């Protein structure tokens, strides 16, 4: 036998030298060490038990070639030559050496290896085992799931070896389920207990039903699990998974709440400035957001056409562009229309609504009523997994950071520049500021420009999150008003707290009440809140009566 094996190897080597290119080029790497030829020869033995032994031995091999041989055997494509070599018939008169996978011509004297049903069953089982080491992760995962279903506890060592070698997370999870579900069938309570603990430690929600079935009694009162210790461990594992899920959900809500809050903050910040300063509710504010988003779209188009290599950075260029466009538009509106309506806040509301209608229809005429496509730059797509089951997407993180930056700069502007000083003075007492020489007209215009410009910036941010269409602004209209009403005027802090608070409350209510009911609840809560504090969260205290 040994001489035959050496001869075989020599012959294979010779073949390898003679044949220029191996046919099995699909995955060339794994055949390096080759399978044991004597083991393969036993597949064609006359004794069924010997053949069974060989099949199960192949099934436990970590070599992917073993799976191919087993597959061929099951498909009746395995052939044995007179000198005991095993070949896999690859069709068209070609074959591959079973041990090494080397391609060759199919010799005329190679006889098919016949399999019966008993062997076929063994092959199927063995295949699942050997496929644990296949190159394709999907095949490996399927094999693990099949093993879990078959429930043969004898496969545990094999799964253990596969787990040691496995690097793919999803396949690992499937393997762990298989391992644990096999261990759970063990008649030794310690093994079952170990399995339960193992599952609990994965913090994976997929195992929860399995564990809960062990911990809880069946409808007839009996337990599926006889051992109380194991039941207790299962209950603990369920609790552990639940705790983890709760944490993930909480963190997720916090993140999405923060994200929504920062969007609201961006949308409402400009509104709060103009409302605080002039007592003017700008109903066209939403349309300024929309225009900011369209500027982002145009800048993206320009980048694609002119600097295709820099397309990823168009967002950076869109920010100043959107700010300038929106600010210019805002200042123009202030000079031509809003200025004439000072002291008549309700009329201003109507006039700005008219402007918003025209802006919306204007954008519709220019760009069409459909949404336009604004792509996320590649550095903004994707996200990082903070913990098992929670992924923070880059675009949302970027917007949170951006919102904080904008707030910081607005704070800087309002509190550390001359313009900011004037704005605060007018917010507190317009007539007095006028009397001491603050150029209120010019400050109004600049402040309106600032508020509109911030809306433009917010529009760029929104373009990265959702659809960009003529109706974009309307979606944020009521929400940003609510932020202003809740936050009160004349205080940056009020707006920040109101926006983040509203975002958070909304997201934390959603799982219980559903998105629509959460929104309704929040609106009703605001209406109730305003009963208590009509001037908002941080109303400046004063003695003046209107």
């Amino acid at each position: 036998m040994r001489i035959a094996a050496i001869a075989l190897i020599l012959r294979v080597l010779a073949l390898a030298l003679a044949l220029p290119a191996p046919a099995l080029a699909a995955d060339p790497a794994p055949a390096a060490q080759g399978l044991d030829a004597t083991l393969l020869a036993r597949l064609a033995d006359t004794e069924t038990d010997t053949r069974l032994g060989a099949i199960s031995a192949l099934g436990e091999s970590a070599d992917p070639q073993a799976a191919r041989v087993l597959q061929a055997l099951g498909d009746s494509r395995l052939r044995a030559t007179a000198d005991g070599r095993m070949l896999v018939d690859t069709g068209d008169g070609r074959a591959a050496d079973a041990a090494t996978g080397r391609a060759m011509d199919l010799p005329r004297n190679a006889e098919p290896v016949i399999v019966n049903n008993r062997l076929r069953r063994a092959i199927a089982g063995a295949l699942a085992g050997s496929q644990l080491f296949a190159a394709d992760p999907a095949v490996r995962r399927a094999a693990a799931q099949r093993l879990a279903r078959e429930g043969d506890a004898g496969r545990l060592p094999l799964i253990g070896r596969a787990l040691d070698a496995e690097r793919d997370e999803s396949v690992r999870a499937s393997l762990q389920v298989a391992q644990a579900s096999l261990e759970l069938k063990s008649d030794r309570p310690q093994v079952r207990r170990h399995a339960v603990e193992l599952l609990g430690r994965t913090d994976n929600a997929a195992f929860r039903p399995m564990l809960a079935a062990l911990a809880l009694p069946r409808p007839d009162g009996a337990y599926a699990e006889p051992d109380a210790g194991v039941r207790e461990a299962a209950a603990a594992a369920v609790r552990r998974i639940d705790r983890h899920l709760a944490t993930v959900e909480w963190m997720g809500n916090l993140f999405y709440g923060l994200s929504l809050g920062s969007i609201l903050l961006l949308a409402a910040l400009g509104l709060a400035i103009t409302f605080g300063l002039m007592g003017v509710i700008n109903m066209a504010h939403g349309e300024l957001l929309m225009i900011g988003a369209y500027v982002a779209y145009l800048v993206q188009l320009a980048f694609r056409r002119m600097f295709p290599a820099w397309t990823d950075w168009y967002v950076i260029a869109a920010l100043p562009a959107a700010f300038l466009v929106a600010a210019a538009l805002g200042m123009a509106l202030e000079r031509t229309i809003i200025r004439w309506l000072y002291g008549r806040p309700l009329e201003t509301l109507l006039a700005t609504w008219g402007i918003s209608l025209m802006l919306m229809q204007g954008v519709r005429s220019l760009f069409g009523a459909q949404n336009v496509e604004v792509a996320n730059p590649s550095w903004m797509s994707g996200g990082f997994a903070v913990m098992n089951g929670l992924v923070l997407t880059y675009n949302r993180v970027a917007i949170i950071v951006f919102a904080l930056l904008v707030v910081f700069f607005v704070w800087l502007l309002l509190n550390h520049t001359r313009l900011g000083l004037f704005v605060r003075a007018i917010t507190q007492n317009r007539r007095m500021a006028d009397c001491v020489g603050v150029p209120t007209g010019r400050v109004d215009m600049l402040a309106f420009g600032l508020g509109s410009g911030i809306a433009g910036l917010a529009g760029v941010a929104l373009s990265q999150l959702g659809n960009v269409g003529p109706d974009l602004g309307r979606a944020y209209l009521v929400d940003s008003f609510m932020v202003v009403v809740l936050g009160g005027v004349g205080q940056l802090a009020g707006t920040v707290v109101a926006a983040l608070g509203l975002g958070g409350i909304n997201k934390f209510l959603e799982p219980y009440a559903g998105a629509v009911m959460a929104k309704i609840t929040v609106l009703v809560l605001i209406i109730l809140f305003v009963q208590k504090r009509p001037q908002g969260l941080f109303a400046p205290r004063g003695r003046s009566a209107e």
Partner: protein
Amino acid sequence: MSGAAIPAGRPLDAYARKPLFSPAMWTGLSAAVVVLGSLPLLNLAFPAGHPLHVSAYAVALLGKFMCYALAALALDLVWGYAGILSLGHGLFFALGGYAHGMYLMRAIGRDGAYGSDLPDFMVFLDWKAYPWYWSFTEHFWYAMLLVVAVPGALAFVFGYFAFRSRIKGVYFSIITQALTFAAMLLFFRNDTGFGGNNGFTDFKRILGFDITAPETRAALYWVTLAALAGFLVAARAVTQSKLGRVLTAIRDSESRLRFIGYEPLGFKLFVWTLSAMMCGIAGALYVPQVGIINPGEMSTETSIEMVIWVATGGRGTLLGPIIGAGAVNGLKTWFTSVFPEFWLYALGLIFVLTTLFLPQGMVGLARRLAARRGEQA
């Protein structure tokens, strides 16, 4: 605060009872009612093609406009006289419409697409019985009670809390907008039990009469006309009364009124609730004539459009909002059939130009012109 734009009220001679309208005005109003009222007769009496025939479309359109006019009249009572700008009158309008719609839906009986006792949308949701708030709505008079009671109760509760905490001006407007928005979201849900975003439609009959028959439509038209004329006189009576003067004082300087010793809460609450009820009635008259009610009536846009009817016609004039509702909606009908894409530009311009150049609306303009002519004469 916005008093500058409003014509100064008459001197406070509280003991002199003035007639509601001048004789000329009475004549004019009666003539208008007669002319408007004769239109459905012309539709019924003369066959199509006859020079005196008025098309069913025109009658239906005018009927619809009169419902809008009633809503505008209601809005003028609170905005024009008490200075409360509501951006939520679409809600009261829609609530009235839904209340009547509940009756109309039940009057369909088994003639729906599924032949069930329940409305089609409930069959679609696999509901087996009416929810509790639908009870008794098969009775017309109960539904009519709801038409007034639901908007009235909502306005009363909301107004009580809002006025008590002295929410006014822009804040009040925004809060009413939020309330309407919340209600719209609620009514868009299928589970709310009002047909989701399709709302109520496919009505068959009202009080046993075929709802599409020209005679039924004429009757609905006359009821609407009567309601509009009646409420115009009633609103005039309210605004001419002592209570109306207090309302005007609230509008012009609420703080001063309070310092004098009046508590504005009751006055504002009264006119606010009355206005909501009127709006509910307008909605209830609107639904059978238009044949559909859905949550779109509660959208932000609808409510603000109502305000512009009032502003265009002339706030604080009662007659102005009626004219404004007719004019703006007539323009809208014309634009949407001839230049649909330009309607929003036109509407936007109306908003801007009215607020900038016509602070007292068309009626104010007419009065100014008349006054100038009087000076010259």
